[in-house]
């Protein structure tokens, strides 16, 4: 063996020996208590898209989180200790989110992760968090599959079982359309809503004349839209995130689709309307209706400069407030936090009149409205 071989082998052996001694002399780590030094901050993790698809929603939710954290700390923190949030960019993809979660759980040792925003994010790390017994509180993930994700997995945003049914009823009964073509992004969220909508709409007596999926990264939906146009629907149900929908709406206009378009909560993004311009005129979408308070709206406006509070922010704000209360009463042990969450009965929040969790960790209330886009702004359809 020549000299460089020997060196490499030597290093490997030394590393292995150290690691081996370390591994077998330690008991498996279950403690996730943050050292209780007087003024050490209590850290939570946040995962959401800060760039890429849904970045506007993510940044808005971050702003709401920061406001909530500032309020908690201004009122004395958690029994004197400041609350701190570590923000990680999930990019609305499973891969980034699961890496972010691994880091938050293993390196930062947080007891709770506030997030993900996109369902794909949450689903990618829910199992790992469950295994590590860390609490996950998602403020925007709506895929029905999350209901069964685990004992430690919560959300204060309703499952799309409700959104899909709401949309199906609205299309069939209120809009009176009987034939629908669906174009949907192939993600947890998109596939999830499509599934529910199809079932409900068919049960009501409607017909799904076409179903075309597209990759989240696809920017040319003309193929899908051409096939949908050929199927002659009365309405197109378009389930997409910001970037795909921007191109999709423009291409639908170019292809002269000619029928009304209904979207879902992923469209609650001003960037979408701004970029799609005339192509977005008259489109509608369903979104969770949150009571919001004037105080909250004012603070958001001060922080973000915009009147619009986006879909995921109320849940993030309430999430922080609820967690702060729980941390103050039971401390930082994640199992204790989990148990306390199931007992929560939070009123006066901005995301819903009452926030409480059912046995699956899902919120007990779900209310939706339909918004319509006119002149680049979305307003509620009364």
């Amino acid at each position, binding site marked *: 063996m020549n000299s460089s071989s020997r060196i490499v082998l030597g290093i490997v052996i030394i590393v292995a020996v150290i690691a081996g001694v370390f591994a077998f002399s330690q008991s498996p780590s279950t403690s996730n208590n943050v050292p209780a030094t007087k003024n050490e901050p209590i850290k939570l993790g946040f995962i959401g898209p800060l*760039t*890429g698809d849904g*970045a506007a929603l993510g940044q808005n939710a971050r702003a709401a989180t920061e406001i909530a954290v500032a309020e908690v700390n201004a009122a004395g923190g958690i029994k004197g200790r400041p609350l701190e949030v570590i923000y990680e960019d999930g990019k609305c993809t499973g891969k980034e989110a699961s890496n972010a979660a691994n880091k938050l759980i293993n390196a930062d040792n947080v007891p709770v992760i506030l997030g993900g925003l996109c369902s794909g994010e949450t689903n990618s790390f829910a199992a790992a968090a469950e295994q590590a017994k860390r609490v996950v509180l998602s403020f925007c993930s709506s895929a029905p599959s999350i209901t069964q994700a685990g004992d430690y997995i919560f959300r204060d945003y309703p499952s799309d079982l409700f959104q899909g049914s709401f949309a199906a009823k609205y299309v069939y009964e209120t809009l009176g359309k009987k034939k629908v073509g669906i174009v949907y992004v*192939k993600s947890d969220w998109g596939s999830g809503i499509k599934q529910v909508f199809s079932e409900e709409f068919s049960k009501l007596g409607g017909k799904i004349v076409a179903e*075309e*999926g*597209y*990759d989240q*990264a696809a*920017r*040319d939906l*003309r*193929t*899908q839209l*051409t*096939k949908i*146009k*050929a199927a002659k629907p009365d309405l197109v149900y378009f389930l997409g995130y910001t*970037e795909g929908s*921007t*191109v999709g709406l*423009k*291409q639908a*206009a*170019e*292809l*002269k689709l000619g029928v009304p378009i209904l979207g879902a909560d992923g469209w609650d993004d001003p960037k979408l309307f701004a*970029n*799609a*311009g*005339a*192509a977005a005129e008259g489109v509608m979408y369903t979104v969770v209706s949150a009571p919001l308070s004037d105080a909250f709206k004012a603070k958001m406006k001060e922080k973000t400069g915009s009147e619009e509070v986006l879909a995921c922010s109320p849940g993030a704000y309430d999430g922080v407030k609820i967690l702060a209360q729980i941390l103050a009463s039971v401390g930082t042990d994640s199992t204790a936090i989990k148990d306390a969450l199931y007992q929560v009965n939070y009123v006066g929040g901005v995301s819903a009149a009452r926030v409480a969790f059912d046995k699956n960790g899902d919120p007990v209330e779900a209310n939706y409205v339909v918004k319509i886009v006119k002149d680049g702004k979305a307003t509620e359809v009364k």
Partner: protein
Amino acid sequence: MERMFFAQLVANSVIAGALYTLITLGFNLIYGATKFTNMAHGAVAAMGAYGVFFATREGWGLPLSIVAGVLVAGIVGVITDRLVFSPLRKKKARASVFVIASLGIFALLQSILSITFGAQFWPLLPPGTGRVFDIAGASVTEVQLWILGSAVAASGILFILLKFTIFGKVIRALSDDEEVAKMLGINTDRMIGVIFFLGSMLAGLAGILSGFDTGVQPTMGLFLLLEGAVSSIVGGIGSLVGGILGAFLLGFVENFGIWFIASQWKGAIAFGLLTIFLIFRPRGIMGKD
């Protein structure tokens, strides 16, 4: 299949074929001279598109921006040749070295775009720009007509250039046999640089038009390159006419293929076609054995 739908598919196929033609022309030109697959070609196309993105954001106005974008692409292409491929040629590196280096350039260029402009997708034109025409029942946008027109013009100009000018003859001599060309006194290294400039400008144009058609994203280069490479191989590497045929064949197979297969498989169709050709007819439609 209903007539309107058929017309739309035909239109979509023709536009796709035209776009791929622009890429394959540049790609084939460079391949002919250098005999390796330049994986950076797509990134150069992206550069052109972002050149326009930058210029329009600075308020330069559309025509000037397009010129700027095309020039940026050409210049970047030449730089990659001067800095990387030319030295490698002098070292007489083997073909795989060129390819690996070109992969490196591709990754580097793409990352520069991501860092400078961000990774997200931007439309290149403000919404609502350009008219939409109804041609035999198919909706075709103004931009798409520009794509078709550019492809025709570029092919025509290139054809005339190669066949009837001395410059063109030099290029052909070089592509045929670099050694002989050198012996004839042609400064092959400099000529290859010029060829890179031309080919890269074509790539830039393709990128710009693709950007107008949908939008720009730093990752747009790879897809364009692969479509161009598939077109070239299917048509017969080294043959410009073959490249054009390959481009249109690809466009048609992709767009008509989705009538039978679910549309999400569209991307894989190109590569399926490539695989089939590589197995059964590697020399392509027009290639010589």
